[in-house]
């Protein structure tokens, strides 16, 4: 097991280097970088000192050096904790991301909690009461959730908020708290709004989870050990939760690991853009659009890192919950 983990970590590190290189290269790919665009703008404005200004900027961001050297520089600095500077914001990347990390994590946790707290009981209910009206309602809802794209759902919610409730945007705070220092009122305000994006992401994530949970549990309920547990005189509830669900939920642990960790970095960027949330997602998408390479590259590397960590955690969790894997 320990060997396996070490091998996995080594493999993950290689992948990480590869991904960082490729993402750096991809962002380099388009003809013309951020500064070329800037020069165009300055020229168009008739700024005489444009050339000189740009030259200074070029030096400052190291854009005058060859690609490989830049990558190595960036990678080395990255390991030191210096992620470079954003062209767009003209501030360090760590500062920009740091300001938004908290909300992103809060949202990721809220989404996960809402999703799982709804999906697992619904899936269990659906399987235990197979073919009942409730099961059919749950099936229809999960089918819709499965197909529904989050950002369109967010758009529909935004429409309702604007037209019906006459709001200007959704966001995470009411206008009066947006720039206010933290207080009990601000926290309550956050909580009263947090459930909207959390629920949107949950609805779209629930569909798949409910269907997997229902299917797994139906398989498990037909297993002899469930009947054997009932024959021991256990309560139905105990049989279902302690024996059947306990087994049926194991494969879902993998999903937990590989979903939650990446969402800490970007979450559902698209939903966040529609709802105007102060999370990392919108900044990331914007950085890609504007070729703001250090910002975008940092996001991609962290995203990949989280994906890899998530997979590793999922493996460990699976081994932890399932002795058949743990003791192999």
């Amino acid at each position, binding site marked *: 097991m320990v060997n396996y983990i070490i091998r996995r970590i080594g493999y993950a590190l290689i992948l990480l280097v590869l991904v960082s290189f490729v993402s750096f290269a991809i962002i380099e790919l388009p003809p013309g970088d951020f500064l070329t665009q800037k020069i165009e703008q300055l020229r168009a404005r008739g700024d005489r000192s444009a050339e000189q200004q740009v030259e200074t900027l070029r030096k400052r961001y190291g854009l005058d050096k060859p690609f490989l050297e830049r990558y190595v520089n960036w990678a080395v600095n990255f390991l030191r904790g210096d992620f470079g500077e954003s062209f767009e914001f003209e501030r360090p990347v760590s500062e920009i991301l740091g300001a938004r990390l908290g909300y992103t994590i809060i949202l990721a946790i809220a989404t996960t909690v809402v999703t799982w707290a709804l999906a697992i009981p619904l899936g269990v209910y659906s399987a235990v009461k197979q073919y009942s009206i409730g099961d059919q309602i749950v099936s229809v809802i999960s089918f819709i959730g499965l197909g529904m794209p989050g950002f369109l759902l967010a758009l529909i919610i935004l429409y309702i908020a604007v037209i019906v409730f006459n709001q200007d945007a959704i966001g995470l705070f009411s206008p009066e708290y947006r720039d206010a220092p933290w207080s009990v009122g601000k926290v309550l305000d956050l909580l009263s709004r947090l459930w909207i994006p959390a629920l949107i992401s949950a609805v779209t994530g629930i569909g798949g989870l409910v269907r997997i949970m229902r299917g797994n549990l139906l398989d498990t309920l037909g297993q002899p050990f469930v009947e*054997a547990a009932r*024959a*021991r005189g256990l309560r139905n509830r105990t049989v279902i939760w302690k*024996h059947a669900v306990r087994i049926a939920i194991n494969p879902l642990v993998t999903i937990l690991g590989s979903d939650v960790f990446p969402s800490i970095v970007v979450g559902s960027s698209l939903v966040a853009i529609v709802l105007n949330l102060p999370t990392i997602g919108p900044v990331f998408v914007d950085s890609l659009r504007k070729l703001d390479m250090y910002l975008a590259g940092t996001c991609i590397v962290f995203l990949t890192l989280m994906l890899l960590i998530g997979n590793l955690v999922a493996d460990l969790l699976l081994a932890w*919950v*399932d*002795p058949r894997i743990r003791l192999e």
Partner: protein
Amino acid sequence: MTLTAQETAPTTTDGREVLLEVQDLKVEFNIRGGVIKAVDGLTFDIKRGQTVGIIGESGCGKSVTARAILRMVPKPGRITGGRILYYRRPRHPKPGQPQDLQVIDLTTVDPDGELIRQIRGGEIAMIFQEPMSSLTPVYTAGTHINEAVSLHRLLPLKKLGDQMAETIMAYRHVTREEAREIAVQMLRRVGIPKPEQRVDSYPHQLSGGQRQRVMIAIALSTEPSMLIADEPTTALDVSIEAQILDIMRELQRTANMAIMFITHNLGVIASMAEEIVVMYMGKQVERAKVVDLFYNPKHPYTKALLQSVPRLGPKTGQRLASIEGMVPDPLNLPTGCVFHPRCPAFMPGKCDKIVPRWNQVGENHWARCLLYEE
């Protein structure tokens, strides 16, 4: 639910008390294509400490009968008639409660209720056909036993051996340490080597034979008055089978436990049971003492069944007999006697018209066949 206090349970000529009495039991499955009569008019009883064998081909209703007794008939199925009388002696009488015998009709008990859950596993335990998958994979052998023990086994409040022991009326649940102790003891009794270590083994670390031993240990850890064994050795190798059967016989002797032994293996049943019930397509076709059944079978189906068993002896070299014809469609059972299309003693105009009754054909010997009706 019928709860009648009675002084004594019906006893037989040899003075043994009846434990379970199945009377004209009917179980039906309503499926899309129609109604399947999985059990149709089954009558037999089991005395305390006795082993009754139920034998028949797969699909004849043996397993459904077992599940009906524990009120665990799977979904589209339900009990549609008859009674299952359970003569219950309270094992842990509480002060102020009647201590005498209760007669419970299990067919009228709430299948999810408190009462049936006390009986299931505690008073009537069951072991299953598939030892490989009858243990929950994520729990150790000890956890399984612990679950049953802490649910059903109560200990007197004062230590055993105390002078007051006989009059003790208060009980407590076993503690965690005691449950573990019991688990180790049980594993030792069913012949698992190094039980102190094996108690912490997960199912996948045990062999098939060991798993079935664990199943038996779970079932017996609660000291039930009856064990239902549903083809407990079918999935095992022959050598393991013999060991398991030995263990069951041994434990039965020491614990005075009744066994309802379900199998399709005549050899196994001959060595285990005192009395045998033969079933065919949900109907009971013959019931007799084991010796009578093997040496003097009455029903043509039983005879055919016995002839299809390979045997050592003077007649070796003969072709093995097989039962003619096909097992009928359970949705479309033959008229009259359900066995008539395959019966070598078929009487045209009679067997396909008249439903045979349950006829006594000897002492403690019954058969459902028109050959024995006037």
